[in-house]
């Protein structure tokens, strides 16, 4: 189970404090009781000396053989029972005030009276009630315990919340952060060393990542770019070889196949280059673009393929969808969506297009299972059979939508049709 730092140490404090206070209470009680006994016993011993002294002066005292107001008695004893040492015991004696037996401390000692007789002196005094004492002590300790916990809780909540403020500020910013968006982390100016250094490290890490990301993006662009020339050389060299008309068929076919593969590579490379350029915000100029017109043009461009594939196209144009956009990007976007709809079509051969002033929909029949919207925009993600797909078409679409920041794109699967919908933001 995860707990907030605010309650984290509290979980340990509750049982620990309980144990510590328990041990402390035990020791405290023992000490107090010892001290009390000591005091009482000293008092009793003192009283004994005074009584014996009094007995020498006034032998009548030896006649006190019942506990009276003085709380002592003197009894005659035989030689056998005589013992001059002090015997201290705790006994229960009925106390009329409480109506119950209460603990008494009793001192027993023997002495010789003036008459040389052997006497035994018993002095008693009321003692504190241990069970009451324990009860009261426990109550006050529990109150103390709860009070300490409450104040600890308050201090925790208040102090830690205050101390953690910069931490949450950093956390919020990290949550907002997206690689490549070039967002700056706002300084939280914490005077807690840990948070200050956390902030410093986070900023440094982000800088490092951004730099690496930029380098990587440039690397893709440069690499794609550098590949174009050797590809051109290879393709055109093969073209020159193919000029030789008396080449045997087998070789001719092999070279043609190699050339076709190279062309695929050229297109893949161009797609990567385009993706990289889009991501690097190289298409910033925006104009009012009429998507309806662009779509019409792209449909015409693709008409021979649509015809050949015998697709049943149902195109409803109800108005002009006009958005501020980069014209070339609008063309690439719609071209890719249309190509996607053509490429992944199935034997139902449906291609539905609907466009009005607020939305644009391109729907096609295809696989009977909805696509995973999380995966379709991934680079190089390919759906099943399309062997000539380079897996970048929809990635480019997604990048354009994100970077141009004027339209929203959504995918849905309705009535066995895969539909991409564009709406204005």
């Amino acid at each position, binding site marked *: 189970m995860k707990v907030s730092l605010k309650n984290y140490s509290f979980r340990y404090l509750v049982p620990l404090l309980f144990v510590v206070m328990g041990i402390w209470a035990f020791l405290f009680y023992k000490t107090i009781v010892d001290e009390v006994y000591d005091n009482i016993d000293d008092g009793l011993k003192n009283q004994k000396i005074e009584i014996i002294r009094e007995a020498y002066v006034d032998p009548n005292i030896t006649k006190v053989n019942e506990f009276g107001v003085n709380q002592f008695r003197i009894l005659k004893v035989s030689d056998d029972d005589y013992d001059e040492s002090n015997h201290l015991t705790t006994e229960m004696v009925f106390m009329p005030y409480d109506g119950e037996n209460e603990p008494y401390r009793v001192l027993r000692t023997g002495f010789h009276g003036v008459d040389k007789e052997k006497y035994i002196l018993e002095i008693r005094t009321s003692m504190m009630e241990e069970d009451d004492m324990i009860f009261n002590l426990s109550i006050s300790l529990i109150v103390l315990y709860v009070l300490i916990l409450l104040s600890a809780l308050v201090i925790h909540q208040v102090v830690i919340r205050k101390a953690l403020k910069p931490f949450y500020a950093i956390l919020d910013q990290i949550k907002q952060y997206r690689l490549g968006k070039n967002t700056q982390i706002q300084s939280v100016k914490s005077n807690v060393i840990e948070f200050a250094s956390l902030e410093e490290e986070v900023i440094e890490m982000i800088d490092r990542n951004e730099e690496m990301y930029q380098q990587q993006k440039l690397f893709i662009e440069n690499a794609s770019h550098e590949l174009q020339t050797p590809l051109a050389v290879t393709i055109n060299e093969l073209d020159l070889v193919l*000029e030789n008309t008396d080449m045997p068929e087998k070789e001719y*076919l092999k070279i043609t196949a190699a050339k*076709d593969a190279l062309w695929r590579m050229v297109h893949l490379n161009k797609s990567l280059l385009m993706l990289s350029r889009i991501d690097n915000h*190289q298409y910033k100029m925006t104009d009012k673009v009429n998507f309806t017109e662009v779509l019409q043009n792209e449909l015409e461009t693709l008409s*021979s393929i649509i015809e050949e594939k015998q697709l049943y196209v149902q195109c409803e144009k109800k108005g002009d969808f006009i958005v501020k956009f980069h014209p*070339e990007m609008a063309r690439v976007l719609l071209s890719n969506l249309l190509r996607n709809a*053509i490429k992944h079509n199935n034997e139902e051969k449906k291609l539905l297009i609907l466009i009005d002033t607020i939305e644009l929909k391109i729907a096609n029949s295809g696989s009977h299972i909805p696509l995973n919207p999380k995966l379709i925009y991934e680079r190089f993600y390919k759906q099943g059979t399309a062997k*000539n797909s380079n897996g970048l078409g929809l990635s480019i679409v997604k990048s354009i939508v994100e970077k141009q920041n004027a339209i929203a794109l959504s995918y849905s699967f309705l009535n066995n049709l895969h539909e991409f919908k564009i709406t204005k933001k």
Partner: protein
Amino acid sequence: MKILVIEDEVQLQRIIVEFLNNEKILVESATTFKEALDKIISFDYDCILLDIMLPDGSGMDILKELKKLQSKASVIILSAKDSVEDKVEGLLVGADDYLAKPFHFAELLARIKVALRKNQQNGNALLQYKNIVVNPEDRMVTVAGKELKLNRKEYELLYYFMLRPEKVMQKTTLAETVWGDHIEFADNLDFIYSQIKNLRKKLKTAHSEADIQAVYGVGYKLQ
């Protein structure tokens, strides 16, 4: 007709030169900015193939220099960059056309012909093979002296065949040059076949001496 190829990639330059020589076109070449500048000042060319990125200077400056010299040469930019901005800038500075590397030779040849036609009004632009004549000026086709009506795609197909008769045009090349960038549908290039079939039929009924033949199943040629 003389063409200057300004290209710093020696290998690519050699290949372009060889191809144009095969097409019986007179070619000279320059590898560096300085060499190119020397040549355009000293000689007249009908067409210049210009690589924008040269090690010792920019192709854009060569374009400006050509303007200053009031040169009549048509300029086709050859660029590995293939970016819209580059294209726009090149055309603004005075280039006639823009071709991204890598390119199909057929495409290059077609662009050269178009560029030459733009600047030369001597009317010698007719393409002729056997009894077929194509006039790119007004897109008129005559077979055995009689006009042949073709739709747009059929005309473009025939135009490419007429540019290089007796040479094989691969299906993928045709798909890309006539229909645009459709390589991703290359598993099914039957739409080319149906257009070619129509074109052949029309040529045959017009009593053409030349016919379009399939070659090894990968392409066609006019013969």
